[in-house]
């Protein structure tokens, strides 16, 4: 589903990712961990196509040119850096944005779309807030709205960049339950996280990064706190 072959990326002179090789199969939950500055977020930005590598191949859906398949991808960015709290948009409007790529030009949202939005908001315990301005919600609620926007289009690939940063435990629990539900629906999930221990039992792959390189990749149930310490605290 997702394949990176010898991928390197940099900003101007600075190399941020070096010779990355990674294969994620359909329906897998892959988490990416590592200290700050290790290249985790850059890696997901390369996978999404926002950053173009100067070397190597990125394949999604088995193709290098996956423009036609883009509408099957949803991306949840790091909330704080991507959203202006004063932006005049309601919770419902935000969630409906997730359907824009599928709707096409000139087509307005219909009853079915509104029902989809209501359903996903109920699932994420946000229905009561649907007419509120997004910026007026708590950090955890806002993050759940971003996730609702990503899920409403029923994506085949879901990419999340540190979705649990700054959110309350209730939102975290709802998020993880939802991710597992998506995984069971055969959605491929790539998630950058600092909170690996909360989800390690469900991850099919744990990619450990440092200084722009993949140190090691653990398979399902192989990852443990002890191994994590061995990798990152032995310097």
């Amino acid at each position, binding site marked *: 589903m997702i394949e990176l072959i010898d991928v390197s990326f940099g900003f101007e002179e600075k190399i941020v990712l070096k010779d990355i090789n990674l294969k994620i199969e359909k329906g897998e939950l892959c988490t990416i961990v590592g200290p700050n500055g290790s290249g985790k977020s850059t890696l997901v930005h390369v996978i999404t196509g926002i950053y173009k590598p100067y070397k190597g191949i990125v394949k999604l859906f088995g193709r290098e040119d996956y423009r036609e398949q883009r509408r099957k991808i949803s991306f949840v960015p790091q909330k704080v850096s991507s959203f202006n709290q004063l932006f005049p948009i309601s919770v*419902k409007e935000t969630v409906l944005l997730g359907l824009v790529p599928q709707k096409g030009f000139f087509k307005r949202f219909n009853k079915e779309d509104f029902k989809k939005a209501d359903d996903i908001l109920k699932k994420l315990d946000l229905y009561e807030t649907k007419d509120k*301005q997004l910026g007026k919600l708590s950090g955890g609620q806002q993050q759940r709205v971003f996730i609702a926007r990503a899920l409403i289009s029923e994506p085949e690939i879901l990419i999340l960049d540190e979705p649990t940063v700054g959110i309350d435990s209730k939102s975290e629990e709802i998020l993880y339950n939802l991710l597992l539900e998506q995984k069971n629906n055969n959605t491929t999930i790539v998630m950058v996280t600092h909170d690996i221990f909360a989800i390690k039992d469900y991850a099919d792959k744990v990619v450990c990064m440092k200084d722009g390189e993949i140190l090691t990749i653990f398979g399902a149930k192989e990852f443990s706190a002890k191994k994590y310490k061995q990798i990152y605290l032995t310097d």
Partner: protein
Amino acid sequence: MLRYAFMQRAFIAGIIISIIAPLIGNYIMLKRFSQIGDTLSHSAILGVALGLLIGINPLIGALVITIFFAIALERLRKEFKGFAEISLSMITMASLGFSAIIFSRIKSSANVMNYLFGSIVAISLADLILILLIAIPSVLLILIFQKELLYICFDEDGAYVSGINVKLLNLVLNILVALVIGISLRIVGGFLISALLVIPGAISMKLVSNFRKLQLYSVLISLFSVVFGIILSFYLNISPGGSIVVIFTCLYAITEFKKGM
């Protein structure tokens, strides 16, 4: 007042412009790219200068030059990635520099003042037809792309990842801004057009919680200010651009005051 043909034309042009300017302006405001209005309005002044110099309708000159710079801007933004304001400043200054040289060669200064600060007597029937011809496809473009434009304003990366053609939409938005500036030139004047693009949205942002209401309120605020501004301009013999911006400023102050209470 309405028995004068020039006032009828001023009101029709004013109403059209007051509806489409905030509809487009709100997108650039939300993209935090409001300064593009200021930059392209200076390009419009250069277009007017060129129009007057070579003897064509200055409005056509303004439209051609603003569209040219709107396209050039996207290229320059790439050159100065992350420093968009550099490309904006460069176009503003280049436009003003060339305009200053050309205006110093043109004899009629009254004409120039009309284009800088607007005039209600200056709108000809040909201008009105041109305004309509530009306004109708512009509104259609907004209707076609409204969902996509909101998406790129809210989260450009997310929109790109999901397959929205961000590059094309940014270009469409720049061209729409250029068009609205070109047709607003007669009434509001080159120096004050960006107020029409940004201030109705800025006032509405204080009052609304969603994007639909933002569009609705900003059109109503703009419509009220433009019509009232034209009336003031007629009775007080002042520039309509100036009176419209003063009304905007008063409305903004009232909104701030009410919110603070």
